[in-house]
C-alpha cells in the first residue's frame, strides 16, 4: 500500500452516485472560492480600467448587436478568411465550450462529493463524454500545430513582428502548454477512473474512446489508480482556476472579452469616421452668430469642468470601446499582416497600437494583474521612454510614435481583418486629431494641404477660378440619344 496523505485517499466510491463528503470537498470549496474570488477582483479592476475611457453611447440596436455577436463571436465567421488557422482554432474553441460542460460536473462533484454527477443523462452522457475525449485529443493535436507555427524558424510571418517578442511570445507559449496540461489531466482522470472500474468489474457511466486506449499504460494497482484519478481531477480543476486568473495578464483574455467587444463594435459603415460634436458647435456658432453653444459640462459642485482635449494623447482620451478593444486582442496579427504600411516595411503595426493601449492603461491606472509582465521589451519601442519627461510619457509618444500614426492610409484593412471586430483605425485617428488640433504637429506637407483647402477649396494649389475649366471644349459623339422610357 502506498503511503499517501489521507485527503488523497478517500473512501472507495463504488456505490455510485451516492454522496461522500470528505475533507476534499471542503478543500475544493476553499479553492473554488479563492479562484473565483480572485478573478472577480481582477475583473472589477479591468472594468474600471476600461471605463477610464471617454463616454460613448453604444446602447440600442440590441437585436442587430446580438446577431453580430452570434455570427462573429460565437460563429467565428471572420476567422474563416484563413482556413488552416480557422480550423485549428475551431477545434480548441469547440473543445473549450464542450469540455466546460464536464467542468460543471467536476465542480458539482467537488462541492457535493458526488461522482460523475451528470451520469443521470444516460445515453446523452455517453455522447458527451465521448465527444469530450475526442475533442480533447484533437485539442492536443491543434495545440502542437499552433506551437509549431509560432516556434519554427522562421515562424508564420504574423508571429514575427517586433511587438511579439519577449513577454507576448512567452505568453502565447504558456497558453499552449497550459492547454496541453489541462487535457493530459483530463485523460489521466478518465483513464484512471475507467481502469479502477474495470479492475472491480463495475460498469463506468459514460463512453471514453481515448481513455479506453490508454488503460494499458496505467498500473493495475487500485491505490495508485486512486491517486492518479485524484491528481488528474485536482490538476484539471485547479489548472482551470489558475488559468482563469492568468487570463487578465494574457492575450488569452480574448476568450471572454471577444463577446462584449463584438457586441459593442460599430454598426455604421467602416468609412464613416466619428464626428467631433464640440467642433460642430463651434463651426455652427461661426456660421450663425445667433447659434447657442450648449453649456460646458459641470462638476457636481457646479464648477465648469476643464474642456477635454481634441483627439487622444493618452488612454483616457480614447473612448471606452477603444479600451475594450485593447482587452479583447489576442495578438493574432491578422491586422498587421494586411496593413499596407506594414507590408511595405513602415513602422506602423495596428496590433502594436492595440497592445500599447492595454499596456499603457495598466501602467497609468491600477494594474489588475497577478503577473505584471514587463511589456515586450525595448525592441519594439521606437522612441525610448527614458528620453521623455513625465508629461510626455503618454500613449502618444511614450508608446506610439507620430511616425507610426502618419503611415496609416485609413484603408480599413485592419478593421476588416480582425476576427473580434477590434478597430485600430479609430485610435489612430484620435491620436492624429491630437497631433493636428492640439499640437499643430502635422507633417509639413499636410499643413500645406490644409492651407490649400482653406484658401483654394482644394487640397492642391490650384486657383478656385479654374475649377470649371475641365468643361471647356467638351464634345460628345452624337449618337441617337436614348430617350427615357
Amino acid at each position: 500500500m502506498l503511503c499517501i496523505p489521507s485527503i488523497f485517499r478517500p473512501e472507495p466510491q463504488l456505490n455510485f452516485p451516492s454522496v461522500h463528503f470528505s475533507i476534499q470537498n471542503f478543500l475544493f470549496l476553499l479553492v473554488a472560492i479563492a479562484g473565483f474570488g480572485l478573478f472577480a477582483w481582477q475583473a472589477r479592476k479591468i472594468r474600471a480600467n476600461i471605463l477610464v475611457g471617454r463616454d460613448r453611447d453604444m446602447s440600442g440596436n440590441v437585436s442587430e448587436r446580438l446577431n453580430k455577436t452570434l455570427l462573429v463571436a460565437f460563429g467565428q465567421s471572420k476567422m474563416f478568411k484563413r482556413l488552416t488557422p480557422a480550423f485549428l482554432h475551431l477545434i480548441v474553441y469547440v473543445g473549450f465550450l464542450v469540455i466546460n460542460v464536464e467542468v460543471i460536473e467536476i465542480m458539482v462533484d467537488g462541492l457535493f462529493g458526488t461522482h460523475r454527477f451528470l451520469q443521470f443523462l444516460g445515453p446523452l452522457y455517453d455522447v458527451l463524454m465521448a465527444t469530450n475525449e475526442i475533442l480533447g485529443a484533437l485539442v492536443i493535436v491543434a495545440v502542437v500545430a499552433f506551437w509549431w507555427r509560432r516556434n519554427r524558424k522562421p515562424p508564420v510571418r504574423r508571429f514575427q513582428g517586433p511587438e511579439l517578442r519577449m513577454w507576448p511570445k512567452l505568453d502565447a507559449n504558456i497558453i499552449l502548454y497550459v492547454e496541453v496540461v489541462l487535457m493530459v489531466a483530463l485523460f489521466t482522470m478518465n483513464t484512471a477512473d475507467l481502469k479502477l472500474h474495470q479492475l472491480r468489474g463495475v460498469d463506468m457511466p459514460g463512453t471514453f474512446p481515448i481513455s479506453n486506449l490508454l488503460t494499458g499504460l496505467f498500473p493495475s494497482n487500485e491505490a495508485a489508480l486512486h491517486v492518479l484519478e485524484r491528481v488528474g481531477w485536482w490538476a484539471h480543476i485547479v489548472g482551470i482556476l489558475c488559468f482563469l486568473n492568468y487570463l487578465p495578464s494574457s492575450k488569452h483574455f480574448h476568450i471572454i472579452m471577444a463577446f462584449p467587444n463584438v457586441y459593442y463594435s460599430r454598426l455604421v459603415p467602416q468609412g464613416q469616421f466619428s464626428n467631433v460634436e464640440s467642433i460642430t458647435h463651434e463651426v455652427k456658432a461661426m456660421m450663425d452668430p445667433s447659434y447657442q453653444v450648449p453649456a460646458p459640462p459641470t462638476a457636481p459642485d457646479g464648477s465648469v469642468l476643464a474642456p477635454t482635449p481634441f483627439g487622444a494623447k493618452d488612454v483616457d482620451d480614447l473612448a471606452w470601446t477603444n479600451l475594450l478593444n485593447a482587452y479583447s486582442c489576442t495578438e493574432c496579427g491578422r491586422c498587421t499582416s494586411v496593413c499596407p504600411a506594414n507590408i511595405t516595411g513602415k513602422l506602423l503595426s495596428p496590433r502594436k497600437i492595440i497592445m500599447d493601449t492595454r499596456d499603457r492603461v495598466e501602467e497609468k491606472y491600477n494594474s489588475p494583474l497577478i503577473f505584471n509582465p514587463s511589456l515586450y521589451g525595448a525592441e519594439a519601442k521606437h522612441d525610448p521612454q527614458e528620453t521623455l519627461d513625465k508629461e510626455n510619457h503618454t500613449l502618444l509618444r511614450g508608446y506610439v510614435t507620430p511616425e507610426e500614426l502618419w503611415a496609416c492610409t485609413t484603408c480599413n484593412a485592419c478593421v476588416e481583418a480582425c476576427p473580434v471586430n477590434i478597430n485600430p483605425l479609430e485610435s489612430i485617428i484620435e491620436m492624429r486629431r491630437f497631433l493636428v488640433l492640439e499640437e499643430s504637429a502635422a507633417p509639413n506637407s499636410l499643413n500645406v494641404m490644409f492651407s490649400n483647402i482653406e484658401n483654394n477649396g482644394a487640397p492642391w494649389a490650384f486657383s478656385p477660378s479654374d475649377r470649371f475649366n475641365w468643361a471647356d471644349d467638351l464634345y460628345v459623339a452624337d449618337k441617337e440619344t436614348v430617350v427615357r422610357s
Partner: protein
Amino acid sequence: MEKRQITVPLMADLAAQGETPEILFWVGCAGAFDDRYKRVTRAFVRILEHVGVKYAVLGMEESCTGDPAKRAGNEFLFQMQAATNIATLNGYGIKKVVTACPHCFNTIKNEYPALGGEYEVLHHSSFLQQLINEGRVKVEGGESYKGRRITFHDSCYLGRANDIYEAPRAVLEALDADLVEMKRSKANGLCCGAGGAQMWKEPEPGKKDVNIERTEEALATLDGNAAALASLYGVESGNQGATPAPKANSQGSIIAVGCPFCMTMMSDGVKNKERENNVQVFDLAELVASAEGLNA
C-alpha cells in the same frame, strides 16, 4: 460621326430658371483639377449627355468635401468645409448626388448627415451599373474590349468603407472582357497607398512604396505570372485563389479603377515598372464612354 459640343449645366443657372436636376454630379477636386482625372470627368459627362439624364454641376461653387483634412486629423477644417458645402447643396434643394470619387462619395454619404446634409449619394460605378441594367447604355458602338484582360483594383473607400464590390465588376462584365481578379481583392483588397491623406505627403521610410506593391500584384495577375505572385504573397498567403492562366500576349491589358487617387497611384506604379507600353490604367467611366463610342 457627328459630334456636338456640350455645355455643362451649372446648378446656379438651373436654379435661376426654376429647374431642378435629377442628379447633381459632384466633380471633386481631382476631377476638376487633376489632368488625368479631368478625362474621367469628361467621359462621365459624355455618358450623362448621351443618356439624356437631367444633371447639373456646382462649378466654382463646389469646394473640397474635407475628406483629406478629416483623415489627417484636422476635424475643424473638415467641418468648415462640410458646413460650406452643405449650405450650398441644401440651398439648391439637392436630393441626389453622383460622384466619381469614392472619397467624396464616402464623406457626403456617411459624414454629412450628422452635420445636416442628407442626400441620396451614388458612386458612379453604381450609377453606371444602373444605366447598363436599364439598357440606357449598351456598351457597344465604340472600342471593343472583348477578350482584353482587365483587373479591377478596389478602392478602400468604395469597397471596405461602403461594401460596394459588385457594381464596378458588373460594369466591367458588360464589356465582355477577360476579367481577372487579384488575390487581394474586394474585402481583402490592398490599398493603393494614397488614402488617409497620404496623397499629399511623402511616405514614411520603409522598404517599398504601397503603390509599387499593388502595381506588382496587378501586373503579375494580368500576366498570369505565378512566380511573381508567389513571391508577393509569401508562403503564408491569407487568400487561396487561383493564378490566372499566363497571358501570352499581354498587349492592351488594363488596370481598371474607380477612384482618382488610385488612378494616380496605379499609373505611377505602371510607369515605375516601365509597363506603360502594354498596360493602361482606366477609370470605369472612360471604359464605358469609349465602348459606347462617345468620345469625340
